[in-house]
């Protein structure tokens, strides 16, 4: 009996009944309950059990399939629906996550690649024929209105406090296609060194994040613009000693946070909407979104030209301001 039981255990772990083996050894469960109804052993008894075993299996299967066609099919539908909904939601979640990764990291790769190409093109242009440089404005054959094809690089911006490796090619135009490549120059705003307002827009987060740390610029910090022939050093307005942005007699603050509609910040004299007033100073304005990861407001930095432009021929390694930090 104990031998039978042990065999039975091993058979059960194998799965179902083994038809090839002797029936006397198999089917421990029927044996255990049949042993009370009928004496175990004997060919007749074994046949009897075998027959019942054969009958019971199909009977169970029929019962199962009948049940799944019946009330359980509704539950299966519901289950499939919920699973589909769950999978869809998880998929959307993953896509959104991937979009965040794209915004924060993948666009940086695109923009940095584009910046390298732009740098190469720009340096090549400067080398080929500096006299054709659009930033030379009045010397242009057209009579002074500097026009650069949209998306073309024409200058480089360096901000020493952001580190010596902070160099970005400035492209013409502020449409998404241009800003994808780097800081963009507001069309119709002044050119570097020109009286008026040289206004640039740049992304805060993603797309190379050129203006990520614009809020860290303090009064007196240098912003250096490099053109074909000249270095222009602008300084953030305000009082360097106290760090107060609002001390400039012109009333133009070194930093301000405005609503997206405040276009006056890029006017020839920042904040002055009267176009009849001729600008008497060369300003630089940087605009980006604020706060980070949002576009609710705009962070604006105003700077003013500090001294005349220095010829690149005399200062091949840049103006003294470049070594500040």
């Amino acid at each position, binding site marked *: 009996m104990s031998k039978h039981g042990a065999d039975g255990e091993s058979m059960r772990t194998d799965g179902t009944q083994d038809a090839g083996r002797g029936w006397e050894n198999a089917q421990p469960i029927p044996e255990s309950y049949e042993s009370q109804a009928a004496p175990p052993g004997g060919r007749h008894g074994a046949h009897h059990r075998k027959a019942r075993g054969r009958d019971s299996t199909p009977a169970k299967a029929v019962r199962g399939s009948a049940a799944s066609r019946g009330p359980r099919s509704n539950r299966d539908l519901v289950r499939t629906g919920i699973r*589909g909904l769950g*999978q869809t939601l998880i998929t959307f979640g993953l*896509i959104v996550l*991937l*979009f965040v990764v*794209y*915004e924060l990291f*993948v666009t940086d790769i695109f923009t940095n690649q584009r910046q390298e190409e732009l740098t190469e093109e720009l340096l090549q242009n400067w080398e080929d024929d500096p006299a054709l440089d659009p930033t030379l404005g009045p010397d242009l054959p057209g009579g002074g209105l500097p026009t650069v094809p949209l998306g073309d690089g024409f200058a480089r911006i360096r901000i020493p406090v952001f580190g010596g490796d902070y160099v970005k090619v400035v492209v013409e135009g*502020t449409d*998404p296609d241009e*800003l994808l490549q780097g800081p*963009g120059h*507001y069309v119709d705003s002044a050119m570097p060194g020109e009286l008026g307002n040289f206004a640039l*827009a*740049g*992304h*805060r987060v993603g797309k190379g994040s050129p*203006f990520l740390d614009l809020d860290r610029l303090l009064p007196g910090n240098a912003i250096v613009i490099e053109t074909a022939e000249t270095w222009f050093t602008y300084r953030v307005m305000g009082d360097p000693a106290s760090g107060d942005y609002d001390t400039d007699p012109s009333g133009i603050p070194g930093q301000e946070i*405005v609503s*997206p*509609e*405040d*276009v006056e*910040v*890029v006017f020839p004299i920042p904040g002055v909407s009267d176009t009849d007033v001729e600008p008497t100073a060369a300003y630089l304005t940087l*605009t*980006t*979104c604020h706060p980070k*990861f*949002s*576009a609710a407001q*705009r962070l*604006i930095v105003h700077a003013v030209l500090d001294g005349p432009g220095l010829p690149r021929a005399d200062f091949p390694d840049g103006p003294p301001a470049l070594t500040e930090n």
Partner: protein
Amino acid sequence: MYTWIWRILPGGLPGKVVGSLVLIAAVTALLLFVVFPWVEPMLPYNDITVE
């Protein structure tokens, strides 16, 4: 949907795993290089200009 994809992927378990990875890579590339750059300008939070 995923069950169905898994079922029709050929090549036994290794083939299914490789097939799944290829599909995931293809979908990711499609999203990163085609869909997201196209969708992005329509979203509001990239406005950095004053206008």
